[in-house]
């Protein structure tokens, strides 16, 4: 995390700089099935973040050495578009995107019924088009909707959401300034139906009590985001296009 307490992030009335209360998340919009070339796809706008995900497969897994005899492999790529950040980033993978791809894959592997598709591969392509803090969480949410849109069977969907700490106060869903100048960040991947966690990271400084409160905020937000995810999928399959 960045600086500690030297930047004012809370107003005198306890609200945040963008007017949200401490347990209020940024607005979330979701659409399913927006990429015609993909088997399944999703678009998620969370605050000013925009993530688009395409799912391809199940398809033949190659090279053959990556095949598993008893299950499918998930090939997940998280990538930031060059224009998604304040300073342009060079195209291609870096250490950060490789790590996020890995932990995102492991989160999704925990819910996808991989044993249904032995020796095959399912590709999940996460593209971040605009970044305003919390893109890994937005990517996970979008990937879940895209997998469901592709008709891939899952035990549950995964909602990505983070809480954190600013000016010694626990808040839900950090925006860019709060992420840059805050004291802690706790992103989680939550299965809204089973209540399980399949993704967890944290950096900064949190007491046990603060961790518990941040977790409570995350679960509350996950239930709200889950409703939006379900509505997006229903809109796609009830009334044709979302």
């Amino acid at each position: 995390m960045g600086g500690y307490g030297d930047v004012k992030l809370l107003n005198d009335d306890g609200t945040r700089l963008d007017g949200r209360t401490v347990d209020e998340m940024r607005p979330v919009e979701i659409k399913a099935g927006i990429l015609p070339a993909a088997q399944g796809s999703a678009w998620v706008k969370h605050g000013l973040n925009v993530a688009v995900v395409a799912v391809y497969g199940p398809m033949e897994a190659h090279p053959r050495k990556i095949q598993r005899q008893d299950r499918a492999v998930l090939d997940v790529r998280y990538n930031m578009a060059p224009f998604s950040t304040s300073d342009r980033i060079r195209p291609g993978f870096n250490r950060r995107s490789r790590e996020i791809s890995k932990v995102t894959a492991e989160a999704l592997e925990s819910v996808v019924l991989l044993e249904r598709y032995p020796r095959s591969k399912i590709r999940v392509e996460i593209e971040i088009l605009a970044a305003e803090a919390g893109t890994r969480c937005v990517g996970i949410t979008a990937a879940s909707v895209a997998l469901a849109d592709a008709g891939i069977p899952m035990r549950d969907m995964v909602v990505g959401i983070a809480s954190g700490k600013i000016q010694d106060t626990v808040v839900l869903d950090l925006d860019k300034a709060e992420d840059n100048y805050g004291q802690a960040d706790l992103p989680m991947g939550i299965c809204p139906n089973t209540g399980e966690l399949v993704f967890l990271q944290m950096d900064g400084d949190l007491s046990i009590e603060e961790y518990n409160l941040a977790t409570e905020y995350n679960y509350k937000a996950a239930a709200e985001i889950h409703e939006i995810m379900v509505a997006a999928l229903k809109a796609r399959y009830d009334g044709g296009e979302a």
Partner: protein
Amino acid sequence: MAAPVPSLLRQELERLAESDQRIDGRGRWDRRDVQLEVGILYNAEGSAKVTWGDTVVYAGVKFELRTPWPDRPTQGSLMCGAELRPVAHRKYEPGPPSPQSIELGRVVDRGIRESGCIDMEALCIVPGEKVWGVMIDIHVLSDGGNIFDACGLAAIAALRTAVVPAERFDVGEDHVLAVKGTPVMASFQRVGGRFVYDPCEDEETGGEERIHITLGNEEHLHSLQKGLKGAFTPAEFAEILEVARTHCGELRELVSSMEGN
């Protein structure tokens, strides 16, 4: 969703061509529906989304301060690149930029650069020391055929609506990027023996050579590219050039209608 067997697809395209039909029901010179949105991405100084039939592409413009090339101390720079990432189609694999994506980026780049729509001198801040570098990145998200035209349109629309972030770099006030023209590309592919405008995915899979034409405001040619195996006659080129004039004019008006929004 599954790709048809190419030889059967080719036969079908040839059969349709005999009665001058196309696989998606269009006339030979018809364009698919095109939707353009601009200014949609936070952090990009200019952005555009083009939905062109089943093709979806985004373009984003970023600026950086750099030292000018020694032989051009009063000129800024322009760079346009395209990425064909695996998100766009199951046929695209991860890895370093493919020859296809490099060709795509360079053809779009030439059309914009050679039209002279960006005044490189106007990108100079301190001669010999500080100039703007303008970077257009094109991101193909869904390849449903004719990504060239979609990328060209997204790039110029993002550029024409871009704001130079001078305040963030502490070199003056933010201002609209001066762009003097609207180069637009029109692409053709030989399908079933004759050229068609705006090939769809099946026509690209079962077609032969393609020709890309970029026309500026005065209907001057600014970039041409012939791709893939095949041979064509000057008479065929003259015919598609006429079609290109009409379509480029229409799309130029679409871009103009986005400005000032």
